[in-house]
């Protein structure tokens, strides 16, 4: 396994890691000072050279995104920090907020300086009561210490950083729905283009970045783009937070090299620590529940954007969910499908109508009422929302449609026999207890 220097988690577990004093004692806000000594465009250049890519799901190059903000625009520029973290299987941003909120705040300060932005909104999911309180305390500390406010660390550059808490809607993690919600509306995504970097919040240029993405920015300014790029692969700099959950001995958040494979993640004693006694891997979702599933013989793959793309899946949000050989995949897919039906915002017909259809067909198969033709119908409905492969052919305004269809396509094509046997036997072969057979409630 490849050991990598910790960039994001280096302070986790240290006493006071979520306070300003604790953060400063390990060199915190030094990177901001270095940034302020440069021209804003130089800071953006540095981030471009670092090969930092977005950690929110799409892996878009961060410096390039910043570069899309028009140079001669008369409107204000906004930064919207995506802390909505609602993709099933994903729980890393929450740990950043809880363990090292100033790392995010320093990243925000540097980013705002680079973008000539004087107002940042952090949109955090409504269910983050504890993490939000920790973040608000850290923001207050930064104001009291003169880091934010009328001046930016003593430099004449006004910066207001404000946390807005969501109220329970997965769709608001999608960047344009997030902007609608920040404008005080229901979360209905906008058609793109125009992209937010050109027309975003209040019609003004807006950069939307994920929490983990911005938490990488201080290290890039402190240690240099070359160092940061060198930690990763050719096209993807730095490290990654991986959220491991499901059927595995040591679930949790791990900071990994971009070269660490799924197999290493699951079996290394310092990472996942292997499978529960007597169990074997059957299937793994590699990047949040929207990412196409992989079978047990596909795990020798690095958990990185390009490598997973080559396998027709995606690194997504870093949420890895492991399913073992005693787990019913029809039931698993049914539950995943229900999530998207529940969270579809209702704006586009294929998604609004298709997601409940997927759910109903899967339920029918799992409950032993499946018939010949059901799988074809299921795949037809999924294709109407978004054909596959490749990823990204969706017939909807935003990618929630793709996210809903991809699991269906991939589970059914890779585990067809399991679906067929449910229909042939007219029951779930796993019986009444197809999951929940390990962990504290087993």
């Amino acid at each position: 396994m490849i050991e990598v220097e910790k960039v994001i988690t280096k302070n986790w577990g240290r006493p006071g890691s979520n306070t300003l004093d604790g953060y400063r004692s390990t060199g915190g806000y030094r990177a901001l000072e270095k940034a302020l000594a440069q021209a804003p465009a130089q800071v953006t250049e540095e981030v471009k050279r670092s090969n930092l890519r977005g950690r929110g799901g799409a892996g878009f190059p961060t410096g390039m995104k910043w570069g899309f903000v028009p140079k001669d625009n008369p409107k204000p520029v906004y930064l919207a920090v995506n802390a909505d973290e609602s993709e099933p299987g994903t729980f890393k941003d929450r740990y950043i907020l809880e363990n090292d909120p100033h790392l995010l705040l320093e990243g925000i300060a540097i980013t705002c300086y680079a973008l000539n932005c004087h107002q940042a909104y952090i949109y955090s999911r409504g269910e983050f009561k504890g993490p939000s309180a920790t973040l608000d305390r850290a923001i207050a500390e930064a104001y009291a210490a003169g880091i934010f406010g009328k001046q930016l660390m003593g430099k004449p550059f006004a910066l207001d950083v404000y946390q807005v808490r969501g109220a329970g809607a997965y769709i608001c993690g999608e960047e344009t729905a997030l902007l609608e919600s920040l404008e005080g509306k229901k979360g209905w995504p906008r058609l793109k283009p125009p992209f937010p970097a050109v027309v975003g919040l209040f019609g003004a240029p807006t950069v939307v970045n994920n929490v983990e993405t911005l938490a990488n920015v201080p290290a890039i300014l402190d240690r240099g783009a070359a160092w940061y790029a060198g930690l990763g692969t050719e096209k993807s700099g730095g490290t990654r937070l991986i959220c491991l959950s499901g059927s595995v001995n040591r679930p949790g958040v791990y900071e990994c090299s971009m070269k660490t494979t799924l197999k290493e993640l699951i079996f290394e004693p310092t990472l996942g620590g292997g499978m529960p006694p007597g169990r074997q891997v059957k299937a793994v979702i590699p990047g949040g529940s929207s990412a196409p599933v992989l079978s047990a013989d596909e795990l020798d793959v690095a958990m990185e954007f390009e490598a997973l793309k080559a396998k027709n899946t995606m690194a997504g949000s870093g949420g890895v969910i492991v399913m073992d050989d005693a787990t019913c995949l029809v039931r698993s897919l049914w539950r995943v499908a229900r999530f998207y039906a529940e969270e579809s915002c209702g704006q586009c017909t294929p998604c609004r109508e298709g997601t409940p259809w997927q759910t109903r067909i899967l339920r029918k198969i799992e409950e032993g009422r499946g018939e010949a033709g059901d799988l074809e119908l299921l795949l037809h409905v999924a294709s109407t929302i978004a054909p596959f492969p490749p990823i990204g052919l969706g017939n909807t305004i935003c990618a929630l449609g793709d996210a809903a269809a991809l699991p269906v396509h991939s589970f059914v094509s890779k585990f067809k026999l399991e679906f067929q046997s449910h229909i042939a036997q007219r029951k779930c072969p796993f019986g009444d207890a197809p999951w929940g057979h390990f962990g504290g409630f087993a």
Partner: protein
Amino acid sequence: MAVLLFSAEQQQKFDSGLVEILSHYPADRKSAAMLPALRLLQSLKGWLPPAGLEQVAERLGTTREKAYEVATFYVMFFTRQPGKYVLDVCTNLSCSLRGAEKVLAALEQKLGLKAGSANDRFTLRETECLASCGTGPCLQVNEDHHESLTPAKLDALVATFT
């Protein structure tokens, strides 16, 4: 006489809270503060009563219809008074793999309530992923998370309900 929405003390909290919230928005974009304003209202009243929604709409210079549209879109906003304890059990995949359905069944039995229903004391719901997948199964009570649940932990928690 109409029942007042707020006590004098609540009204003062609402007014000053709103001033703070609005200080973070452009002066001509008051209606953007809808989510924080509704959260403030709900923190004072426990839910979003119609008179409160009207007051929020008026203060933000928008319509009652817009306020309702937002209030009904997000699951954490209550346009009807919920039970004293709102119990949200995550039954998404990672938690279900770790026994969330058993947590839900145990709660249904202990509280004598079906998932998706409510009485004066309890609102019991299935909910979507709470970003506690590594520490599942997870139950949210009002806004507090209870993670890595075991039957013993759940018993102890239920015993604290008054």
